[in-house]
């Protein structure tokens, strides 16, 4: 999707007590501003945004299916966050860099990652740019300017901060966006990232999905701050509190702070209010800590339904288009999964490569030993 032509957007208000939004819970515009004017998004771009959200949802659904079928070992869901995730990625430029967190991958097709690559990561095959080294939900791809995340919560924030310093150092006109959940704001890494970003005026956007739970721990037990966005104040820059189920508001705020960061190196914190619709992961049982009714109530307010109703309201979408889109994506996803699986598991030697740039003698020895055991094992099964 092309970025809108006109340069500077109107400035969103930082540090609001209510989340910024254009669309109400029915998906209808509220207030006196036309979101298309404020965001600069054309009709075609609005449709593209929605399509990308639907694709992310469908990639996610396939992730769950692969776990149930035993083809993937683990899965962690984006459902409930598609609007904020897709809109914030679309608000960036190709030269920008992305530090994902584990719920980001189903949306990374927005950056150009192919479905085969995304499913290759989930399945741990050679189709994964990282060669199946990590568990599902850890997609990264250098050619798409997507860093490879590790599992420790908040680790990405502090490293993204360093990447932003490098961009500033080499006078590149680009930003780094670092994603995380509200739980990540409790870690020391978050503090270091925020503090350094403020001190060195770095082109860093820390984007926090406040989905209201960190596994079972509710938001109120994570911090005594009224909002997460307000934490930015203490580090000397602005924080924005935005309704994460309103993709238009997320797009606006992200695009604004990214443009500003590219031109005058101003960091920003964004808090997107969302809700995790699924259990924390395929290993979680969320009924142990939250009532089913709460989840059901949030399903009525989430971004996909809202965005669809908005498009219908504008006369840009209907049931027929919805059906056709699903059919198209079903086919594409099925094909991608098949191709990703056919790429096959990584070769045994891959375990010993890339521990270092040049493999030292003892690892070469270990690789030979491992190969011998694997061959014996195969021989004994024959």
């Amino acid at each position: 999707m092309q970025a809108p032509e006109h340069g500077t957007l109107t400035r969103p208000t930082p540090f609001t007590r209510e989340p910024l939004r254009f669309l109400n819970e029915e998906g209808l515009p509220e207030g006196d501003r036309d979101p298309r004017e404020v965001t600069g998004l054309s009709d075609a771009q609005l449709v593209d945004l929605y399509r990308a959200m639907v694709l992310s949802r469908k990639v996610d659904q396939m992730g769950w299916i692969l776990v149930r079928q035993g083809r993937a070992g683990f899965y962690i869901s984006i459902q409930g966050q598609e609007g904020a995730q897709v809109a914030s990625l679309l608000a960036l430029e190709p030269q920008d860099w992305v530090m994902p967190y584990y719920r980001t991958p189903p949306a990374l097709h927005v950056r150009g990652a192919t479905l085969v690559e995304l499913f290759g990561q989930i399945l741990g095959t050679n189709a994964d740019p990282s060669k199946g080294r990590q568990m599902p939900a850890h997609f990264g791809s250098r050619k798409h300017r997507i860093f490879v995340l590790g599992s420790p919560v908040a680790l990405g924030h502090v490293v993204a901060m360093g990447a932003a310093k490098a961009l500033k150092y080499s006078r590149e006109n680009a930003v780094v966006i670092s994603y995380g959940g509200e739980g990540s704001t409790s870690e020391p890494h978050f503090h270091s990232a925020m503090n350094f970003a403020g001190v060195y005026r770095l082109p860093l956007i820390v984007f926090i999905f406040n989905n209201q739970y960190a596994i079972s721990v509710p938001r109120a037990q994570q911090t005594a701050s009224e909002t997460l966005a307000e934490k930015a104040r203490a580090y000397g820059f602005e924080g924005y509190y935005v309704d994460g189920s309103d993709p238009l508001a997320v797009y606006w705020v992200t695009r604004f702070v990214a443009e500003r960061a590219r031109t005058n190196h101003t960091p920003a914190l964004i808090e997107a209010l969302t809700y995790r619709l699924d259990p924390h992961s395929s290993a979680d049982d969320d009924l142990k800590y939250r009532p089913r009714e709460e989840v059901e109530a949030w399903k009525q307010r989430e971004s996909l339904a809202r965005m669809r109703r908005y498009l219908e309201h504008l006369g840009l979408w209907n049931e027929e288009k919805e059906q056709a889109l699903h059919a198209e994506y079903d086919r594409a996803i099925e094909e991608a999964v098949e191709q990703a699986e056919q790429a096959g598991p990584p070769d045994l030697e891959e375990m010993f490569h890339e521990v270092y740039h040049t493999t030292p003698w003892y690892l070469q020895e270990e690789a030979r030993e491992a190969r011998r055991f694997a061959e014996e094992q195969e021989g004994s099964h024959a």
Partner: protein
Amino acid sequence: MPEMTLVQALRDALAVEMARDDRVVVFGEDVGRRGGVFTVTEGLQERFGEERVYDTPLDENGILGMAAGMALMGLRPVAEIQFVDFLWPGFDVVISDIAKERFRSGGQYGVPLVIRSPYGGGVKGGLYHSQSPEAIFAHIPGLKVVIPATPSEAKGLLISAIRDEDPVVFLEPKKIYFGIKEEVPEGEYTIPLGQARVVQEGSDVTIVSYGALLHEVLRANETLKQEGISAEILDLRTILPFDGPTLLESVAKTGRIVIVVEAPRILSVASELAAFVAERAVDYLDGPIVRVTGWDTPFPYALEPHYLPNVRRIVHGVRRALGLVP
């Protein structure tokens, strides 16, 4: 005696100690309402209240700092780190404060606390849900390191760890959290720290292991028996202070030793035990000291089955120790 899984035995140990001693307090990420992501603390908050069993923010530095401060003031905190792979944001507290509190204060202060944490591979957890960093902790003077291999051991060792005057890093082999059941003594049951268990007596070779891999060693033993090899199998249980006398006694008897750990080999616990035996028992040795370990790589995801020591590699190690293969 009731049959329990490792998780049930740990829960039982916590309940026994909490009932006996109101200085014992349990906290960490998701341990309260959720009862822990592996359910070890399930039901404890209902039973003992939110002041004694509670959830913390997502911050290992905060958790470990809180534990250190509480222990300093005379409480007996049992802090859970959800996976040991995630302890490192709080490592400064462990290495700089907890481990050194007694020594630096000339014995005025001590921090009798337990850091409980699941560790180890075998669960398709990839790089950060599989690691075995016991040697990293054992390298820090002032810490004790304990790893149970069975439900009874889990209970007896955890109670001892809570009662110990020194800080204990208590690593739980998550691979066998639910897979093994056995009868576990009821009520107060302790196993002294610092003592290995002779799982099976034998005369040809000593095999030392601990944690989930002990069970792989027992499977390998079936093959060894068929080959007429009599193995003496030791379950180390306490990594530090490790049970030197039992180890030496066994090697004096068998003259051969194989050490089996799942951590990477270089500077591992296997390395320390090998050096210890080489220094103290070289006269008894009739063959090479053999280490069977994880490879010296980060823990892989897709290739995990090739990473962990298995029966084939253990048997091969024993044959090498016996001089049957090069």
